[in-house]
């Protein structure tokens, strides 16, 4: 459905994308995960024809993006990061406008509009001016405006930034419903729990490069990831740490906190605690860290998603 090959983008001297490649099958939800400035929005902007890539090839639903952008545009819906709505118009008028911009036949537009507004839980407020809406409601209308022409492919660029939990859940449900109905989705986010919940496959983007991609279990397997027990101590000394390091090979110290790594943390938790007791250490806090996208990202890039 979507093939991206060696995509590069430079802004003056800054290389925003350094030759990324990926393919997405029909009906798949693909997550682009990365911190701010990783190149997610640049990728989406190129795929949605807003930016012209410096190099590389993109095909969308069999159409070459460079040669026939208009054909590609007809197949895609774009949920931009910015809430792009006319505040002085009602939600209904905004949707009417976007529907007509995508050439939705007039006869069908009213029906589709009603259906979409209902799906996003905004039927009661559809005739109110957008400026009276909460941030979450605006985000939902922003999504609705990208769905009216029933695109086969949907690009969602951080659609849950700055909204309340209720709207976020509603958006998740909508994405899941669309995915279930067979829509191909590219979802960019820097919230790993969103990518974990919604995406079939994930591409981890850092500093303009895809450092890893696959399903969550493939990503876990590829890095031979270890779980960890994180313990903070009240009386950790260099001497105590050196004694611990002799008894437990795979550990790392951060100030008064030690990360104990293991393939089976649950099974070895008692042993770790016993070892600490033997060294005379007092516990302040104990935490078990399972493998998730955050830890995978950390191990791949050496930084957290919020960096």
């Amino acid at each position: 459905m979507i093939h991206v090959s060696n995509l590069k983008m430079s802004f003056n001297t800054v290389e925003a994308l350094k030759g990324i490649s990926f393919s997405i099958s029909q009906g798949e939800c693909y997550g682009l995960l990365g911190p701010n400035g990783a190149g997610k929005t640049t990728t989406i902007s190129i795929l949605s024809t807003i930016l012209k890539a410096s190099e590389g090839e993109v095909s969308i639903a069999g159409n070459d993006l460079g040669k026939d952008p208009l054909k590609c545009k007809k197949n895609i819906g774009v949920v931009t990061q910015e809430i792009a709505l006319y505040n002085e118009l009602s939600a209904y008028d905004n949707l009417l406008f976007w529907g007509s911009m995508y050439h939705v036949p007039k006869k069908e537009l009213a029906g589709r509009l009603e259906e979409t507004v209902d799906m996003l839980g905004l039927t009661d407020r559809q005739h109110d001016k957008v400026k009276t809406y909460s941030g979450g409601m605006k985000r939902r209308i922003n999504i609705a405006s990208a769905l009216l022409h029933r695109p086969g492919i949907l690009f969602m660029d951080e659609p849950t930034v700055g909204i309340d939990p209720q709207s976020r859940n509603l958006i998740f449900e909508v994405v899941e419903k669309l995915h279930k109905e067979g829509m191909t989705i590219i979802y960019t986010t820097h919230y790993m729990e969103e990518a974990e919940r919604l995406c079939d496959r994930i591409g981890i983007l850092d500093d303009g490069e895809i450092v890893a991609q696959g399903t969550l279990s493939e990503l876990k397997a590829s890095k031979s990831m270890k779980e960890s027990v994180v313990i903070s101590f009240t009386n950790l000394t260099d001497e105590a740490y050196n004694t611990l390091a002799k008894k437990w090979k795979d550990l790392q110290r951060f100030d008064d906190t030690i990360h104990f790594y293991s393939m089976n943390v649950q099974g070895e938790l008692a042993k770790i605690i016993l070892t600490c007791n033997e060294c005379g250490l007092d516990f302040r806090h104990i935490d078990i860290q399972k493998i998730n996208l955050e830890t995978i990202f950390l191990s791949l890039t050496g930084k957290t998603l919020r960096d």
Partner: protein
Amino acid sequence: MIELVKKDLKLFFGNKQDMLLTLVLPIIFITLFSFVFGKLGQPGKGNSGAIVHVVAGTSVMMLLFSVAGIGGSLIDEKQDGMLKKLLCSPIHPNEILFGKIIFANIISLIQLIIMFIFAWLAFGLDILHHLAPLLLMILSTAWACSSFGIVLASFARTRQQVQGLSTIVVLVMSAIGGSMIPIFLMPKILQDVAVISVNYWGIQGFYDIFLRLLPITDTDFLLRVLALLLIGTSLNFLAFQMFKRNIRRIT
């Protein structure tokens, strides 16, 4: 493209402040200037030089301020992310600017028509006997002025820049073009410079109709119409180039 124009019209007529600034404020200024410059607000003095000057000069100047605001809405749309979303939709990017130009022309026409109807009703300006040349001059002035607003916006990066730039440029053009002081009262050098201003051609065209009483077929009159059309077309051409290089560039 029609949808873009319809949307802009809906936004304009739904915004009381825009309506007030575009349609009511110029009427207030015309009334004020008419009374200030020689107690001219009396019926029957319609085609006097002062009335014609005040109506023509003020209308063109106020129109330039209005269209600068319309041009500024292009910058607002870029800053709000609307332009980005419009560029994703299946239209040619130039249609976005075309839509804005058509909208600016419609508003300009409405504003000028209202000004002259007001001048007819309030001061007895004889528009009924000059309908054809007046309409032609209104069309060409609207074309030139609206393109000026669009081109101004295409050079700017922020709304504040448009406002600052437009205030300076409109005031300078109005001063040298004869919106404030009639051109024949100015020094020779300023009279020569005046031809670079949109105001000059518009005001002289309205003088042709109401003071010089030239027919629509007169060469001098038609040359002024041509000058306005050329100014408008050139500025719109420049706006398209700048739109591609400046506004459409989203990083």
